[in-house]
């Protein structure tokens, strides 16, 4: 589904991704761990098409097509979803209105029929149960005045409604209480299917207890420096990042 080869990317003239390669097949869940400042969020932003991230070398193919050639909205319609590490507050834009506009824009681009407000409401009712997100949040402006945990839940709620094929979750587990963490995990597990793949960026083993990954990677200094199965996460939990990634010490946190 996703094939990243030797990806180099820079932000504001500074090279952040330095030859990153990763292959994700449909049905797989990949966890990406790594020290602060290693480039994990940068990878998420490059994959979803944020401006200001300049790809200087390498390639990303998604379902066999050049992902990097697409506008962010086209990537979304093609099934790419990024749950933001820091979801953005957008005062004045109603959460439900926004989500319906997003879903219908995606459907329109894919040549599918748009949902009318009744159909959309029905879909929201189904998904809301899973995420246990309160009705009141849906009627507020996007993320505006949401607590940290509510923002993260709202990201997963959006994911549940938009039903992407490739979901990149950037530290969606950070700042969640234990109940919220379970709900987020449940939201992910419900969407797991042979057609979907997940890239879960996380610092903690805890999430991986609930969403068991097929692969765990360590991203340090702009590269994947080690890959393994779920036991790698446990090893990291115990020993930290020192000694990981063959020879180099991963002092990328600066």
């Amino acid at each position, binding site marked *: 589904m996703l094939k990243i080869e030797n990806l180099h990317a820079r932000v504001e003239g500074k090279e952040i991704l330095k030859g990153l390669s990763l292959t994700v097949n449909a049905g797989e869940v990949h966890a990406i761990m790594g020290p602060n400042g290693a480039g994990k969020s940068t990878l998420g932003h490059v994959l979803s098409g944020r401006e200001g991230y300049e790809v200087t070398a390498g390639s990303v193919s998604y379902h066999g097509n050049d992902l990097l050639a697409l506008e962010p*909205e086209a*990537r*979304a319609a093609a099934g790419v979803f990024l749950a933001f590490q820091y979801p953005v507050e*957008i005062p004045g834009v109603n959460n439900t209105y*926004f989500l319906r506009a*997003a879903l219908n*824009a*995606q459907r329109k681009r894919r040549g599918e029929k748009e949902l009318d407000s009744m159909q959309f409401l029905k879909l929201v009712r189904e998904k809301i149960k899973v995420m246990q997100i309160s009705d009141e949040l849906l009627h507020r402006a996007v993320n505006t005045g949401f607590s940290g945990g509510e923002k993260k839940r709202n990201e997963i709620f959006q994911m549940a409604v938009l039903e992407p094929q490739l979901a990149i979750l950037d530290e969606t587990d950070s700042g969640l209480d234990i109940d919220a963490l379970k709900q987020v995990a449940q939201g992910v597990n419900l969407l797991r299917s042979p057609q979907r793949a997940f890239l879960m960026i996380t610092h903690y083993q805890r999430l991986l207890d609930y969403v068991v990954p097929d692969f765990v990677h360590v991203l340090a200094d702009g590269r994947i420096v080690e890959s393994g199965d779920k036991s790698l996460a446990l090893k990291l939990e115990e020993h930290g990042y020192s000694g990981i990634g063959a020879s180099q010490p991963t002092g990328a946190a600066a």
Partner: protein
Amino acid sequence: MSQPATLPLVSSLLDAPLPSSGMTWLDTARRENREAFAAGGLPDTRVEAWKYTALRALGQRRFGHVDDVAQRPAVDAPTLALPGVDGPRLVFVNGVFCADLSVLDRLPEGLTLQPLSQALRGDPEPLRFALSRHYREVGDAFARINAAYATDGVVLRVAAHAKIVAPVQLVFVGAAAETDLAWHVRNVIALGEGAELSLVEQYMAAGEQAQLATLVSDIELGEGARLQHVVLQNAAIGSSLIRRSSVRLQARAHATVHALELGGALVRHDLQADLVGDASRLDTRGIFMPHGRQHIDTQLAIRHQALHTVSSSNWRGVANDRARGVFRGAIVVAPGADGSDASLSNKNLLLSPAAEIDTKPELEIHADEVKAAHGATVGQLDERSLFYLRSRGIPQADARALLTAAFCRAVLDDLPNEVLRDHLSAMLIAQLPNT
């Protein structure tokens, strides 16, 4: 200010014959204001109030007089209708009252509504104070020319304690004519003690011809009177529109203004308010949204002159393309206006690198125990918000429109006429780029 007589604009306006009323006081006022205009000409940008609005290009243009035009241009009556606005209607085409487009039958009790031209033929005495004003500053050039030449406009009175619920609609249409026209309108509006009025003032275009229009309005609110005033300015994109409204509020009177400034090439609106009665209150909300090469200049001058007076002003500017917006919000809390509360906010959005908005909040406090807050910002659409929306699948143009509409939303939120509010929001969104 220099060589006024040689400016094509000034000489072409002065070419029009001075109207004669048969009333000495009015003819004198007209003549003296005309003379003042002839002597003073147009203000240049050294005059503080015109600092950001240069009249050089306008000064080179020539405009004919309405009397030069043989036929009244055709205007389609259904286009005048506004959702949520179903009261009496007074329509002026190029400054001339149009009985056939107006709706004046079955006026509610307590409402007097007639064109100035008629009122002057009837009982002119109540208009004497307003119409015999002299404008002393060169910055008042357009008020001078208006005082000299305006022969029509709106005379509206609400009797004490009368409540006019259905909104009264005042429509000013600029219609294409054989030549570029100048026209002038003078409005006199008064609400008696405890009276209530909902008023919608609308500017629209029938045809795309260059015009120069001046409008001067006096609005007086008696004790405890309430006014809901909506201004929808969607004039022809080639027209120059210079308006001045002066509002006076007696004790406990409350005026609310919602203004949407969309059209026009060169637009200037002066809103002057005097809170002369204790505990009177003025709320102004507005959006100016110039695009293309439009220039829209809004100037508030609010003077608190009595105890416990309140003013709140919330204005948003959105400029696109090569357009220019100007906002000046000057609030004075005069000596003795103790316990007053004045707040002003003006936030602006530049949608293109060539667009410009100049904003200047000014606050002068000469009284005690005054609560005051003011602030102004100029910025761009937030890149992170834009990316967030696009990452969910919303196309860039739609995302920009959505954020721009959100930026403006707060300003219309407290407009009680819901149907009209939705219509205004829709007009605003229709004006947004690429939608």
